[in-house]
């Protein structure tokens, strides 16, 4: 039993010895730009207050507003929270809520823009389009309703647009989750499926916040096009731009996804980390490409089905 306590005690003493030596050497720090100072001149330096170390994260403080602030202002702290297993049950629903809110706001804004233009996207079913590929898959047809431009809001077409984008953008990432998990394993990053889920939702939340940020600019431009009566081509171009806006905002999400994964390279041996970091970047880009291919199909299918119903 005596050996039981000796070895840890020795280890502690060793640590304490190094501490003492280290403290002595650090406090005798010479000033910068003054090489060759004699012994008496040590410690004659102005000590500037070091920056405060990052505050530990209490999972209970991660409310929706706090997360929104972290997404906007303090991304490193958000990544720190993502690495806290105890925070996952709080992060998951809140990141999902932020994403959904952003995408719903986008859907409502797009519906408003279409209403203002007096045109509404008319979708052709995918099987029908595959039979006659030369037909237009999506056309902007004038709104024909007894209620005028408000027709789509009453007959559920606006709701279909909102639901298709809000659900489709998030559900597509759920479809791509397994591939992201395997990509991470391929890159050598040891992540659990749950961590992959949280990182994916974080990237969705970042994309949704970016989308909400871009939205006012887009709406202002679209309203300008409508008010100043620009030509048909410009109008169609503006509406197409609106429809692909989530993909543009998705670039922020992709960057956030990579930024979240890159520090996780510390879970692999150091000699492999640098080599694999580049590989990880390529894999994240590949996953983004895969996601970008899935999303339009998902959104279109849901939108077309709901519009038909």
């Amino acid at each position, binding site marked *: *039993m005596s*050996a*039981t*306590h000796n*070895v*840890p005690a020795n*280890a*502690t003493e*060793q*640590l304490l010895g*190094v*501490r003492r030596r*280290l*403290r002595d*050497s*650090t406090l005798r*720090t*010479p*000033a*910068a*730009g003054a090489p060759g100072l004699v012994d008496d001149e040590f410690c004659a*330096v102005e*000590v*500037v207050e*070091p*920056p405060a*170390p*990052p505050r*530990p*994260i*209490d*999972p*209970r403080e991660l409310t929706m507003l706090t997360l929104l602030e972290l997404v906007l202002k303090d991304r490193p702290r958000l990544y*720190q929270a993502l*690495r*806290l*297993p*105890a925070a*996952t*049950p709080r992060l*998951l*629903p809140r990141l*999902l809520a932020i994403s959904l809110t952003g995408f719903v706001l986008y859907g409502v804004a797009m519906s408003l823009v279409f209403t203002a233009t007096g045109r509404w996207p008319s979708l052709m079913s995918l099987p029908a389009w595959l039979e006659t590929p030369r037909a237009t898959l999506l056309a902007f047809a004038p709104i024909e309703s007894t209620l005028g431009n408000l027709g789509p809001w009453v007959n559920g077409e606006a709701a279909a647009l909102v639901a298709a984008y809000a*659900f489709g953008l*998030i*559900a597509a990432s*759920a*479809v791509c*989750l397994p591939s992201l998990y395997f990509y991470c394993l391929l890159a050598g990053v040891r992540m*659990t*499926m*749950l961590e*992959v*889920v949280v990182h994916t*939702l974080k990237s969705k939340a970042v994309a949704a916040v970016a989308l909400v940020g871009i939205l006012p600019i887009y709406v202002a431009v679209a309203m300008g096009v409508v008010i100043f009566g620009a030509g048909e081509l410009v109008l169609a171009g503006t509406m197409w731009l609106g429809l692909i806006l989530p993909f543009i905002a998705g670039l922020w999400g992709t960057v956030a996804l990579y930024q979240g994964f890159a*520090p996780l390279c*510390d879970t692999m041996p*150091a000699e492999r*980390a640098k080599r694999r970091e580049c590989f990880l970047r390529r894999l994240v880009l590949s996953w983004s490409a895969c996601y970008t291919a899935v999303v339009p199909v998902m959104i279109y299918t849901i939108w077309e*089905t709901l519009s038909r119903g």
Partner: protein
Amino acid sequence: MLLIETAIFYLLFGVVVAVAYYLRGGATFELVAATFFWPFYLPMLLATGEDAGETLSGKPPVGNDSLEERDALATAIGQVEGELDAALEGLDGWAEDVLNCEARRLVELRSAWRLQAERIRQLDRLLAEPATHDDPLAAAAADVGKARHSEEVRRENIRQLAALRKQLHGDLIGTLAWVRELVTMIHLAKFSGAPAARAEELVAQIAAAVQGLSEVNAWREEELAV
């Protein structure tokens, strides 16, 4: 399969996941989200048993000291890692060479912290088991001559396990505190205009912290082998 059938199956799975999520302590308002977005909730549901330190609603379990301690350890390690990362990033290439050299040992240090924390959790689980407390069998053994000695040895072993847990916990907290101290020294050295060699020495000392934990762990492996 048509879209409608797919949607029905999707929602059916969703309802099952949502109900399971609710029964495992999930919040009521999340039922709808879990139904529609069940692929995100399923991994959490499956992972809850093994490594989630909280209930699904995010509230810490009442009266469960070992889980609270698990959170405290993870939080402490996360905090020190955050401080260490901030300090190393703040070096801005000031001690690039030594950082490259010590990168492997810094990774080892983080792994050693997690390993030590996991050992403490394992011991917590072991010590929380009913067999480590007084039970009717132990009371009966105390009255029987032959069994009394075995019971005394058993209790002594449990006491040693508790002491070992305390020791492991002390080592981990001590190392974490030491690294925090070194982190502040890095800041001090940087802002007081110390030469790069000083920062290199500090980074090397942080990396050397892994030796303390490794030695403790290695000794325990040997002890177990004996």
